[in-house]
């Protein structure tokens, strides 16, 4: 049973955590692609920027959370979302809109977004330095240890406070996005523009407004992912940049331009990662006595070691592009 708890901690919990982060990031990437038809490589740095905003706000008002008993950074999250959304809209106005007005090819927009990445990374380092900082400025991270009610279970299921918040907020964000896209006038117009931009314009839909709404949603979601990730580990200026590959893998696995696909893709990549780095020897240990004597299992039976976790989304990305380039849900081919 201890082995099963170990599996839950290292695969189920860890996979859900990275899956949620990837899903939230990939939804933003996929929405931007479906409206503006380019891969937004600066998306991860929007996440880091959101986390930085939460960090700065928490440093400014460190005691804000203690009064109601939730982490200060979480109270600051709505404000961080607003600021990140404003940054995203601003970046679009300054960098992407002039490019669109010239009718450039998507690849030019992609290169432009790489430039934005460099600018954002520089700015973030300028204000936050290069070292890691905890988003728990004045408060303490709660860690829940749930002992399973079985005999002989010594190891508890470990889950942290920010992880629980992450699951709840991911669920709320997904439901809110679903309702927005299917019930609201702007959400439907967004889907319409993704389907057929010319016809959307011909129907009187203000496409500039839809572009702005897309950036607001993508920026807000990026701030959620960045803040909750930094709460769970620590804030680092390059924290989310290394999530760019898994996030794009998730968006492509789900079918680019398909928000629900991006959510599914996020969890596929997240669980694939945690399954790939899991040491399967641990699960086999209880059955060791029944193995033939000549079979000597290595002590580390993971597909890849943790340091090389990044190859997993890369492998998934290559595999999906070869065998199913439109993704699990039918999306557009980049």
């Amino acid at each position: 049973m201890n082995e099963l708890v170990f599996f839950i901690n290292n695969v189920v919990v860890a996979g859900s955590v990275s899956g949620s982060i990837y899903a939230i990031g990939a939804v933003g990437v996929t929405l931007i692609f479906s409206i503006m038809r380019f891969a937004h490589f600066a998306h991860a740095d929007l996440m880091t920027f959101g986390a930085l905003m939460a960090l700065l706000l928490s440093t400014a008002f460190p005691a804000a959370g203690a009064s109601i008993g939730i982490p200060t950074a979480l109270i600051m999250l709505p404000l961080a979302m607003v600021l990140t959304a404003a940054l995203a809209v601003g970046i679009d106005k300054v960098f992407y809109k002039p490019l669109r007005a010239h009718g450039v090819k998507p690849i030019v927009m992609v290169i432009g977004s790489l430039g934005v990445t460099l600018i954002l990374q520089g700015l973030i380092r300028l204000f936050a330095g290069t070292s890691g900082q905890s988003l728990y400025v004045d408060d303490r991270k709660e860690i829940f240890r749930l002992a399973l009610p079985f005999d002989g279970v010594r190891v508890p299921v470990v889950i942290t406070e920010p992880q629980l918040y992450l699951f709840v907020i991911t669920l709320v964000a997904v439901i809110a996005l679903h309702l927005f896209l299917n019930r609201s006038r702007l959400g439907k117009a967004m889907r319409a523009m993704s389907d057929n931009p010319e016809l959307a314009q011909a129907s009187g839909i203000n496409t500039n407004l839809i572009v702005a709404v897309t950036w607001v949603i993508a920026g807000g979601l990026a701030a959620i992912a960045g803040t909750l990730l930094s709460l769970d580990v620590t804030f680092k200026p390059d924290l989310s940049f290394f999530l760019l590959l898994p996030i794009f893998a998730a968006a492509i696995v789900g079918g680019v331009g398909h928000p629900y696909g991006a959510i599914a893709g996020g969890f596929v990549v997240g669980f694939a990662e945690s399954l790939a780095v899991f040491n399967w020897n641990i699960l086999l240990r209880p059955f060791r006595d029944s193995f033939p004597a000549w079979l000597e299992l290595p002590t580390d039976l993971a597909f890849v070691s943790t340091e090389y976790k990044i190859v997993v989304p890369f492998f998934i990305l290559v595999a999906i592009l070869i065998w199913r380039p439109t993704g699990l849900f039918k999306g557009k081919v980049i």
Partner: protein
Amino acid sequence: MPLLEARDVHGGYGSMNILNGVNMTLEADEVGVIVGPNGAGKSTMLKAIFGQLHVNQGEILLLGEPIHNLPPNKLVQRGMGFIPQEKNVFPSLSVQENLEMGAFLKPHNVKRMLAQVYDFFPPLYEKRRQPAGELSGGQRQMVAMGRALMAEPSLLLLDEPTAGLSPLYMNDIFDRVKEINAAGVGILMVEQNAKQALAIADKGFVLAAGQNRFTDTGEALLADPDVAKSFLGG
């Protein structure tokens, strides 16, 4: 004052002109039909009116006000509706959502107009929850017309509404166009099926090489032996 007036319109893509001086006048209660050989600039003229093509000489007036080179969404606000020939629906949106998009600028009108459009196209009501991409060509044309009507336009532009439809559907579409016109909407459409289209036209514009070749009532054009010989296949 005419609903739509085009005076000596020149325009095209880049430096190449496709329209070389087109003139048109359409009254508010009329059906106008643009016919002519391939490459005559028929659809291009429609695009120029709807702000999708740069007009570099001449002017286009809607109820006396210049509208050339205004973006399409501004023209929709001014009462113009456009139904493109291809890709005339949002395929992943349901039929009802397609219609709702037509009233994007007049959200308070949605309920009333939906009822009217369903009344006008009963088959759409049955399929209202189905993605428009799953419909047949004729039904899609109904969705496209319904979407444009949702904005209560005063002028409706149709680019080859019967292209690729069976003759049965074709007559149905022309009947619908007449009904829409009878309800007080000015119509300007481009048609390949010149004879049938001119038969319902108050005004016909025969274009060739980006210029008016003949301009008259539909009836007179059909009766004109020159028009018949050169443009209606004898």
